[in-house]
């Protein structure tokens, strides 16, 4: 049964990639693996686009005066950057690509439960993306990615409705993906694959899907109300008409705080897979990692008020939200400790995916701990809306999720494409990403602590050194992201053929050819052991 002892060669067989080359066979595909590829291409486009806007922001901040662009343009740049990166890159990043590809394979199914719905979700995503691009062409938006009223609904003169419509539509694509995952995990597991044997990647996606189902509809309706208010000049949130702008913030963060966990849980799932594989050990505390995903999903719904400590929320409410926010950091910490314990005394090897995973663990920890700092009401009074917050969420989102995404992409690239990428180049770029990232964002903690506010295009002289460091770092980071684009594409043409299981990893997806056949498995798999029976295997091999 193991690919470890008897290497097989499937290269000449029909697989999901060479099974039809026409454009139609891609655009009307119902194969979850092809849809994952469609998503991968489209989110890469948006990542590049969002990156361009980020470059504009960092260039403006290279010098203290607002010389490159005026304040209005700058506002549009960071707004478009945030909207695109959050709604069109980070939320779909891991779930819609790696998740789409792997969840059915990891549970030993032929496809997701609703392949047509899956394709629909990609089209919704594209439609939402077209709205966003159209808004950019129309002159952009300047409300910030949070669309706060009454600025968004009354005062802004930019393409607010079109952009919000884009986020609204993309939200439904996210809901449909989540729905598909939950049904698939419940109903389509292979014989022998009990809940306790599910890979942690699947657990993480299950928890993510719950948030997508319960949270996204709320932001959807909130955006609808905001658009109605703006379009018809009526008052849901407009204080001049008796409405309450803070109610918008409550509704918005009720989704958007849980949404930050949509943007990290799938990454945590990736890390669990990589860390075990490259430590060659059974994961430490499986039930705790699985359970903490659910705990995060549930607790995450009760902390939204920590975004509103200075928005006129009662002190009492702030205290409660602060307390629950401390609690929500605990399950994240549980995961970090368990990954570390998994590596402890493992035979750790430093292949590219593992480099990214280790980067994730360190950077996510910094991001999480600074989150707890922000959750203390007294500190947040000083740090709210400063660069400290910007640094915090980039440590979790970029240092965490994007690292995990890159790690996962390297880990499963051979499986997805049947080709090996260039390991040396991959390690170099992982190093560049790590250095570039820290150089970009660590100074921002200090800037925020010193009092530099976010969302301004100019700043006082004394902040210049740290800002130059940050801009310099962002160019290194940019190179770090560009290199993989090059060597990944190169690998498609010249890369070595990938064996079914190049990393000797556990999991059903590795027991089928690379790239997998359209039906995923040549025969329906039967699961007879735990997800991470690395150690057992090695021991048996010795005996």
């Amino acid at each position, binding site marked *: 049964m193991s690919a470890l002892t008897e290497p097989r060669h499937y290269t000449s067989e029909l697989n999901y990639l060479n099974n039809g080359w026409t454009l139609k066979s891609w655009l009307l595909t119902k194969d979850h693996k092809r849809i994952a590829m469609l998503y991968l291409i489209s989110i890469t486009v948006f990542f590049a686009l969002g990156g361009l806007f980020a470059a504009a922001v960092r260039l403006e901040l290279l010098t203290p005066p607002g010389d490159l662009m005026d304040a209005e343009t700058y506002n549009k740049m960071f707004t478009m950057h945030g909207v695109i990166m959050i709604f069109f890159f980070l939320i779909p990043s891991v779930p819609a690509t790696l998740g789409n590809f792997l969840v059915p394979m990891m549970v030993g*199914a*032929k*496809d*997701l*439960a*609703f*392949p047509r*719905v899956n394709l629909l979700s990609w089209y919704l995503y594209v439609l939402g993306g077209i709205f966003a691009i159209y808004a950019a062409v129309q002159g952009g938006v300047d409300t910030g990615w949070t669309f706060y009223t009454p600025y968004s609904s009354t005062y802004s003169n930019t393409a607010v409705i079109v952009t919000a419509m884009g986020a609204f539509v993309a939200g439904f694509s996210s*809901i449909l993906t989540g*729905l*598909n995952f*939950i*049904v698939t995990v*419940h*109903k*389509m597991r292979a014989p022998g694959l009990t809940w306790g044997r599910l890979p942690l990647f699947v657990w993480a996606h299950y928890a993510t899907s719950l948030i997508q*189902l*319960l*949270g*996204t*509809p*709320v932001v*959807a*309706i*909130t955006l*609808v*109300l905001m658009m*109605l208010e703006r379009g*018809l*000049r*009526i*008052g*849901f949130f407009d204080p001049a*008409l*008796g*409405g*309450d702008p803070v*109610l918008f913030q409550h*509704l918005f963060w009720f989704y958007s705080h849980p949404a930050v966990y949509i943007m990290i849980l799938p990454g945590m799932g990736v890390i669990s897979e990589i860390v075990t594989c490259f430590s060659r050990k059974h994961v430490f505390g499986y039930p705790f990692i699985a359970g903490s995903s659910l705990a995060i999903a549930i607790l995450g719904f009760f902390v939204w008020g920590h975004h509103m400590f200075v928005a006129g929320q009662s002190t009492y409410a702030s205290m409660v939200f602060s307390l629950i926010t401390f609690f929500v950091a605990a399950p994240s910490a549980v995961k970090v400790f368990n990954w570390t314990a998994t590596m402890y005394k493992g035979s750790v090897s430093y292949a590219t995916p593992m480099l990214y995973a280790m980067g994730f663990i360190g950077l996510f920890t910094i991001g999480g701990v600074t989150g707890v700092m922000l959750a203390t009401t007294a500190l947040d009074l000083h740090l709210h809306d400063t660069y400290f917050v910007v640094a915090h969420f980039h440590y979790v989102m970029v240092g965490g999720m994007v690292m995990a995404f890159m790690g996962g992409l390297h880990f499963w690239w051979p499986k997805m494409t049947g080709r090996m990428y260039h390991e040396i180049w991959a390690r170099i770029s992982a190093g560049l990403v790590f250095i570039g990232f820290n150089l970009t964002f660590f100074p921002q903690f200090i800037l925020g602590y010193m009092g530099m506010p976010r969302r301004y295009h100019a700043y006082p002289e004394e902040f210049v050194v740290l800002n130059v460091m940050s801009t310099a770092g962002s160019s290194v980071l940019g190179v770090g992201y560009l290199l993989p684009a090059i060597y990944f594409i190169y690998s498609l043409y010249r890369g070595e053929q990938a064996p079914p299981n190049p990393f000797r990893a556990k999991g059903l997806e590795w027991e089928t050819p690379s790239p997998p056949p359209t*039906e995923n498995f040549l025969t*329906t798999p039967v699961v007879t052991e735990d997800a991470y029976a690395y150690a057992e295997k090695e021991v048996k091999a010795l005996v």
Partner: protein
Amino acid sequence: MSDAHVGTLEHTHDEEHVAHQFDNAQQQYESGNLGMWLFLLTEVMFFGGMFGAYAVYRTWYPDAFEIASRTTNIPLGAMNTLVLIVSSLTMALGVQSAQLGKRKRLAWMIALTMFFGLVFLGVKAAEYSEKWHHQHVPGLNWNWTEGEGGREVQILFCLYFAMTGMHAMHMVVGVGIMTWLLITALKGRYSPAYYNPVEISGLYWHFVDIVWIFLFPLLYLI
């Protein structure tokens, strides 16, 4: 519900309608149902956002809301409530007909459900035009002459139109689904071995009805 289960279990040998990703009809049946229930859960959250806003403003402006809800047309609202309850009944009878393999009755029940849905939408349109005449449409045609508190009253009307409008859009979708069901039912697609589409469409229909059952007292009665 439970006999429905037994019904499919007996007929798992009928694999004609099983999509390729499923192992058998039972798995497909359960997946379809779970999928619809999850979808309805998202719908609960979707409407929940508006119910939340309603609760907040209701607490803040109880008087204005009372004045505003007095201008709604209770007889028409009550009639629509009745229409929807009956439509839920015909829908349920439709599912039962499908389970029992009574194809003709199934087609009739779907047609009736669709008819009641259209009646509901017609009455709703009449109510909207009545509001338009009274200039009770915020943003488009608004002029509050019935005394104090127009600013706050306006919020209730915003919510009224947002909530009933969103509900009516769900009704339109529901009528669309019924049309599709009717066509496929007339083609003889459904049988005791395969009636999942009828059942999950029914779930959707009942859900939309239930939303109205909440909207009616909140917007008309209290």
